[in-house]
């Protein structure tokens, strides 16, 4: 059972964000990370995969919310992208293994499952409603884009199951 809720009004700030900015973006990110960290520490029922994924998201955001975080000119993950990534985790079925989490140079957050050589599935979540996915299934591949609303798109789940199966 997972009930990860984001409270936009939450001003709790406990995450070790390497950002001393005072912009509205920085403040939003602080609120978001504070909420995620609170979920991890008190009162919220999380399955192990969700907890692992949220911790990985926190680690990713701690690094990738600064411009040039990869040492090679990457764009930072924006508060909107971070929020969407958090929502994505909260919508994942509890039966799935925890994904690896990372950021890409365009500021999108990646969720990746790997089942050995030639079997992998990756979803990229950005600041908008659309998520992109790509899967490797041996000699076959699939990719596409779907709108993320109040549930994980069926095409994403179907291809993820194919990669993990």
């Amino acid at each position, binding site marked *: 059972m997972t009930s990860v809720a984001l409270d936009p009004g939450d001003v709790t700030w406990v995450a070790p964000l390497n950002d001393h900015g005072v912009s509205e973006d920085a403040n939003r990110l602080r609120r978001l990370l504070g909420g995620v960290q609170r979920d991890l520490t008190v009162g919220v029922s999380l399955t192990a995969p969700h907890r692992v994924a949220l911790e990985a998201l926190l680690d990713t955001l701690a690094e990738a919310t600064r411009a040039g975080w990869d*040492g090679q000119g990457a764009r930072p993950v924006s508060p909107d992208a971070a929020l969407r990534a958090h929502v994505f985790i909260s919508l994942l079925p509890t039966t799935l293994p925890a994904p690896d989490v*990372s950021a*890409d140079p365009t500021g*999108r957050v990646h969720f990746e499952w790997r089942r050995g050589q030639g079997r992998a599935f990756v979803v990229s979540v950005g600041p908008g409603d659309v998520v992109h996915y790509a899967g*490797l299934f041996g000699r076959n*591949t699939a990719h596409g884009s779907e709108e993320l609303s109040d549930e994980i798109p069926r095409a994403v789940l179907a291809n993820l199951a194919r990669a993990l199966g």
Partner: protein
Amino acid sequence: MRFLERFWRTWPGLWARPSAESATLTSPPDSAEPLTRYLLSTSQFRRASWTVKASAFVPGPDGRKSVFRILGLTEPSIWKLGEAEVLNPPFRLHARADVTVRSVRDTGITLDADPPPSRHADLVGWPPDESACLLVAAQLADAAELRLNPAVHP
């Protein structure tokens, strides 16, 4: 004897021929030619499974992905190249993702030699569709061989 074996394992490139580093880079490059993507963030690879994440190969906003042609270089020289041309403080050169020109071509994108420096190149010709781009990055990551920098991860 055991000491010599250990020494040889630790410094395998020490006796490599100097001429190997001046190997001619052909244009167009041979399919078997090795390329490397230097990784300055630990989030772009999995140390436990020695694998590379797709995010390591996603092109930047300019639609290019910087790599280096490492044909003929010894292992120590490859790390030196990264330190000289890619590393910038406070970052650390954690690892590299090695792929071949063949695995790049298999995805449908191309290699564009882009000196200076002389061994620099870009992966270009990425598909305009973002999910197709993600697939190419996933394929390159799957084909890549992870190498950890022994100076950072002894």
